[in-house]
């Protein structure tokens, strides 16, 4: 095994007495103290609830369901998202839609946020631009586990209008 000899600089007399180095240390801490007391220039603390950090645009936050122009949910209950989901946190119950071009709509749409791993596969799997993770919000804390299972109406509250072409053909 190779041995590396680290050559250390010899300390001069004043460094050996600590006096010089202690003085330098005190100068640094005192400088930071006065600087931060007067200008708060170097303070790295972020006052969290009041001052929030802006997330990057591609941040994957809480899910939302998008709407069509007539206000109905874009989701056609094709189950691609719940199939793609590696955590199995999306539970959809499908119902028959009046419009036979659309065929299905979700009667209930639940996402268990405690199980979700925020991978974004559902978003990618969706052929209808119905589910998105761009709300920029965290899952909020709650007192019960059940409150972390967010329902269709909660998902729609965040939802906006999407005019993307749906179902592979024009309207």
């Amino acid at each position, binding site marked *: 095994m190779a041995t590396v000899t680290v050559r250390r600089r010899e300390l001069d007399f004043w460094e050996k007495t600590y*006096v010089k180095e*202690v003085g330098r*240390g*005190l100068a*640094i*801490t*005192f400088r*930071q*103290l006065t600087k*931060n*007391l007067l200008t*708060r220039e*170097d*303070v*790295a*603390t972020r*006052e969290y609830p009041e001052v929030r950090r802006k997330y990057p645009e591609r941040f994957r936050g809480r899910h939302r369901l998008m709407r069509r122009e007539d206000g109905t949910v874009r989701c056609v209950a094709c189950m691609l998202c719940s199939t793609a989901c590696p955590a199995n946190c999306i539970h959809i119950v499908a119902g028959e839609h009046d419009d036979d071009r659309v065929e299905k709509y979700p009667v209930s749409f639940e996402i268990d946020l405690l199980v979700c791993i925020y991978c974004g596969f559902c978003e990618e799997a969706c052929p209808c631009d119905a589910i998105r993770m761009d709300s920029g919000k965290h899952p909020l804390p709650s007192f019960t586990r059940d409150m972390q299972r967010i329902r269709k109406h909660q998902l729609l509250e965040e939802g906006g209008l999407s005019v993307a072409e749906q179902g592979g053909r024009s309207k």
Partner: protein
Amino acid sequence: MLMVILAALLKFAAIVLGFVMVLATLLTLIERKQSALMQNRTGPNRAFVFGKNPLSAFVGQLIADPVKVLLKETFDPPHADTWLHRLAPGLAFIPALLMWVVIPFGPGPVPGAEGDNFFLMADLDAGVLVVFAIASLSVYGSTLGAWASRSAFSLLGGLRTAAQMVSYEVTLGLNLVGIFMIYGSLNLNDIIWAQAGYDAATGFQNAYFLGFIPKWGIITQPFAFIFFLAASIAETKRAPFDLPEAESELAAGYFTEYSSMGFAVFSLGEFIGIVVVAALGATMFLGGWHIPGLPIELTAAGQPVIASLATWLSVAAFLFKVVLLVLLQMTIRWTLPRFRYDQLMHLGWVYLLPLSLANVAITAFVLFLTR
């Protein structure tokens, strides 16, 4: 006689409740704020009581801390000696307060003149010895608390406390010997008068070096001041000498098993200890209540007038010097990393003690030549 005792008790209550406890309480928060700013953090700023401004958060934190501590459960560890365990914080706390009995925080009559110092409770000729006698008692509190807790962490902390206090008290005492030799007294009052330039034979002749440098202990004994500062930080068990409560090694050291008021009393006692050593340092090395340039002949008869502005200015000067030394100690505490245990003993016995002895010997030699 009763009146004298009553007056002394009143003064004790005034200085302890009006200054020492207030400063110690403020220190618990100032220390956190100061260390935070030194480390580019903000420190506690959430406990608002009136409006969202820094002052309100400061006041709120001062209220919130004791309330929180009072509401905690007082816990005695299983198999601990409950009685001793509860007694120990008091034993650590009381000596720190008692030391104020002999520290003069304002000017009195010149030495030898009639009358007593209004700003001093006990004018003892062995003043400094009393301070050390009481200071040595405070080690009982921490060691007893550690032993009564029946915890390995506590016991190790207690052992370290005892060893450290014994080692550094020697240095602390030896560094004051030079002061006694130069100013010729053990009485704290006389030492301050001598630092102000008073000479029993000549009065106020040559009160300053070169006409403007005061004859303070820090000028006549600069090395003793540095050693004293180091030893006094060790006495107050704070970084870089905080081995007894080294949190990364011993949880909280000798008060690991304390909660609620027991813990609060221990830590408040430590903060009071800081104020006390600062007061001792100010008295011995910074001229006590002496303000350079202010005419020391406060009154014609050498009896300071209580209503005199100069008298109260002197009291303020003393308190200011104490605060200054306290802040210096805090800055050192948040600047230097902790020593290893063997380094601590090495520094104490191999460097500080012989250097202090050399300082005493050289001072004695110089005094022998010049007098």
